[in-house]
């Protein structure tokens, strides 16, 4: 059978104005990397049409070993606590080559 290992996939959707802050947060939480997608959408803060610098969303995906999840969620919670609007959800995934996701990014 394949070497598929269970890990957590955390997805964050928010305004792309927060990009630098979120990336710093990922580093702090020991992620081995992260992926950013440009997004649009709508929600409590209204329409994000993606045409202006201020109304473009980003969707961040990060795969983490389960034991680092709590740390990440704590930080995201704190960010939400200061007033930022984040859509955050966690899914169970099975990764190929799990060691890759256990090595934190170079600072």
């Amino acid at each position, binding site marked *: 059978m394949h070497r598929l290992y269970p890990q957590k996939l955390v997805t964050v959707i928010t*305004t792309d104005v927060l990009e630098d802050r979120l990336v710093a947060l990922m580093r702090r939480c020991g992620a081995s990397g992260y992926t950013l997608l440009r997004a649009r959408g709508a929600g409590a803060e*209204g329409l994000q049409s*993606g*045409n*202006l*610098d*201020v109304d473009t969303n980003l969707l961040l995906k990060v795969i983490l070993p389960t034991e680092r999840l709590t740390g990440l969620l704590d930080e995201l919670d*704190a960010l939400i606590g200061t007033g930022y609007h984040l859509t955050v959800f966690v899914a169970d995934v099975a990764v190929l080559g799990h060691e890759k996701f256990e090595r934190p990014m170079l600072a």
Partner: protein
Amino acid sequence: MSAFSNLLIPAVLFFALGFIARLIKSDLRFPPDLAKILSIYLLVSIGLHGGVELARADLGEALAAVFWAFALGLLLPVIGYGLLLATRRVDSLDAAAIAAHYGSVSAGTFLTAIAFLGSQGVDYERYPLIMLAVMESPAIVVGLLLATWSRGRLAAADPERVAARTERGNGGMAEILREAFTNGSVVLLVGSMLIGAIANPKAMESLHPFTTDIFMGMLCLFLLEMGMEAARRFGDFRRVGLVLGGFGVVMPLLGGLIGVMIGHSILGFGVGGTTLVAVLGASASYIAVPPAMRLAVPEANPSFYLTLSLGVTFPFNVVVGIPVYYHLALLMAGGT
């Protein structure tokens, strides 16, 4: 007649086309990056023009213009904040974020005003170009100060709610200043202005076809997209309501009036220059300020400030405001 001729300027007509396209629910869409690309082009081009003027400018007059640009940028948000709180339609953090937009400027509106003056055959002083570059940052700083102050008052009233916030903060004053002055469009505009001022004049000429000849066409495309964007935001009007919507019309008139007075009576500009200063006062930012507020005042709801600045004030200025400020300037000039 001149008010009507405003509507014969291609740039204004393209704005209207974009607006109407959304109203009739056309499926016309611009690729999401086009507006960003056009706005980079416009900022660089205005910056270079401003820089060439700056190099030629009289130092004393330039300093006076810069000083009053700062003053406008600091004063208008405070007035706006007061008015907004008086409407009792938004809380004080929303008021701070909205007000900051009105202390800053809209390059799109400013350029439309230049096209308008061109179509009227009216000449204008170049100092407002420099003022434009100066006015982005002070308003951001005032907005952040108003927000910090509002947060303090809210915390006093309801210590629970803003606890997390005050504890971690969003960076101190130094950070606020740094962010206001390194804002992307400030860097682009001020940087291009410096380049225009110091670069080899012969080399600058080789840029002329790019920065000047095709400028009007690029502006038309930009306003076409902005017309669509304005209509999209205008659709959120319900959220904002009539009173707040009224602010989006009254505030530019007020800013325009103050601008006319500064332009005419203090800076001693002619009708053209005075109109442009009025437009600086009247217009609200929809490019530089919104991201700054979103980052630093996350408690404020962006649909308020975007709807007001982009959905109400921007179309108002482009269609009604500019000719009005021009007539005010004419009146003042006649009155002296």
